[in-house]
């Protein structure tokens, strides 16, 4: 059968042959494009693999020299080449924690205002303004912090705080020492200002996923606005809000420029929040280009690896929580 059919097609003339070639070309192009997109998708994985691999490779000398002690000592001495990561890790964790403690209530307050209280005409402009502010480069917050915010804190807020807490136990050591202006607290406050728009816009987005019918039913049985927010909106969006907060935390942990300007870059753990300190990212930004010697460079790369691991875990948890919310919304 085929033997008879084949010559017939062959004899069908140049038109059919051209058609066959065109189809051939199509299918070749088609496969090429599909493989190209697949390669690009794999390249994204390759970037992540490259980041992790190069950081591990770069930090091997530091871990070989200091072992686990790298995590538990706060000595940072380029002259004797003794390095420990405790002070930057402490600074990163403390500044981010304080920043989140301020930014989360503030950001969620703004989100509640935007979804429940704001006159509809203002909703879009204010929401857009907040989203635009979330996109402003961090160096802008840094330069503002250095020239405007830190002098303000130094002249007005810090002497006042030192004064009123001077006789209160615990608090007097937390807010002790001369008012430098720059330091852990200033960095935390700048971080908080940066994270607020982020938390606010994510929270607003998840608050808007609450089905209007649920809220209307609650209002229908006589709930006040606060009761609707507390008993309906927040429980319904809990997972998404936590996911958004974790995303903000990821941003705060890795934030570099805003913090570098105002933290003071002191490799020292101080009991006082007013004292200068350092964070992982600020140490790298300040010292990397000046680092002489393989061990110094390697220690800074090891800091980078620690930072990447911390943020990776935080961001992964955030994504998993937001994904669960999407599944819930899709149901």
């Amino acid at each position, binding site marked *: 059968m085929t033997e008879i059919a084949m010559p017939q097609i062959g004899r069908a003339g140049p038109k059919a042959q051209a058609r066959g070639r065109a189809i051939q070309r199509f299918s070749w*192009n*088609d496969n*090429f*494009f*599909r493989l*190209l*997109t*697949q390669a*690009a*998708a*794999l*390249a*994204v994985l390759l970037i*992540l693999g*490259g*980041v992790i691999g190069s*950081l591990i490779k*770069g930090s091997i000398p530091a871990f070989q020299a200091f072992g686990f002690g790298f995590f538990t000592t706060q000595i940072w001495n380029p002259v004797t080449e003794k390095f420990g990561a405790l002070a930057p890790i402490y600074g990163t964790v403390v500044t981010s924690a304080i920043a989140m403690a301020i930014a989360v209530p*503030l*950001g*969620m*307050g*703004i989100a*509640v*205002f935007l979804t*429940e*209280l704001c006159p509809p005409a203002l909703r879009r402009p204010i929401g*857009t*303004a*907040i989203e*635009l*502010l979330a*996109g402003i*480069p961090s160096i*802008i*917050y*840094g*330069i*503002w912090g250095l020239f405007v915010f830190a002098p303000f804190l130094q002249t007005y807020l810090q002497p006042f705080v030192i004064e009123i807490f001077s006789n209160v136990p615990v608090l007097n050591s937390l807010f002790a020492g001369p008012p430098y202006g720059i330091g852990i607290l200033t960095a935390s406050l700048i971080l908080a*200002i940066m994270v*607020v728009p982020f938390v606010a816009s994510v929270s607003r987005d998840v608050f808007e996923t609450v089905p209007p019918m649920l809220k209307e039913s609650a209002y229908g049985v006589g709930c006040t*606005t*606060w009761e609707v927010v507390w008993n309906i909106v927040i429980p319904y969006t809990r997972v998404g809000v936590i996911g958004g907060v974790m995303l903000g935390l990821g*941003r705060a942990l*890795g*934030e*570099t*420029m805003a913090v570098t*300007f105002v933290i003071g870059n002191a490799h020292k753990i101080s009991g006082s929040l007013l004292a200068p300190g350092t964070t992982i*990212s600020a140490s*790298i*930004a300040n010292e990397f280009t000046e680092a002489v010697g393989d061990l110094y460079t390697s220690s*800074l790369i090891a800091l*980078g690896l620690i*930072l*990447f691991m911390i*943020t990776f875990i935080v*961001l*992964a948890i955030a*994504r998993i929580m937001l994904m669960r919310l999407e599944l819930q919304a899709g149901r």
Partner: protein
Amino acid sequence: MSSNSASARYSARHRRSAIWMSLSVAAAAIGLIGLFMILVVLLWKGVGGLSVAVFTENTPPPGSAGGLLNAIIGSLIMTVIGVAVGTPLGMLAGTYLAEYGKYSRLAFVVRFINDILLSAPSIVIGLFIYEVVVAPMGHFSAIAGALALAVLVVPVVVRTTEDMLNLVPNTLREAGAALGMPRSMVIQRIGYRAVRAGLITGVLLAIARVSGETAPLLFTALNNQFFSTNLLAPMSSLPAVIFQFALSPYEDWQQLAWTGALIVTLAVLALSIAARALTATAQQK
């Protein structure tokens, strides 16, 4: 009596609600006023230093007048190369996620990793490029800076491309297939065209994201006091100059830092607003 206590409870609940809601309004007021204060201060301090010289002269040595020309050009060159490298890669990967591998295991993993790269600390990306480009080359270079920016562009473009292609109605794809178009042609001639505005938005957002990035440039492109277009040599950039000049003790340098900060902010805001306007008009159609 009982109705009295019920109404007392009712007004107590209302008071409670009013207190919390006024706290929420206060939060919004504090947040918005605080953020706008930053912009006002920036405008105030930055506009004072704006002049023609800023755009026509190079960064000066301390104590003399000058401009930001080399920094502006450097930022433009590195951003353009970074976007030119990152965008095709991001668009292809986004196409795979939306069109070919939608429900595959690979797509799931790539989506997850991409979302993490999207918010990974940019300074770590700088370290990565230092390790794979700067260290083997033996010196800092503009091309390393541009590659660091490209790594930051990719996740943004992947995300927007996927989201946009997901908006293309399946009936359009089926119509293309019914005409005998192969799949790649359906994607290129129908999918991309249907969401062109969205794809451009993604690129604009990516440019906005990288044009203010400082941390990844500090130890890839470093900085350069002089005018340079050599891709293999260190290159100046606006954010790096802002960083250096702001922390210096010289007044004219600090003024230039403020002016540079104003230029960066206005550029970023203009890009974000353009991106928004584009999606708004595309949705109206």
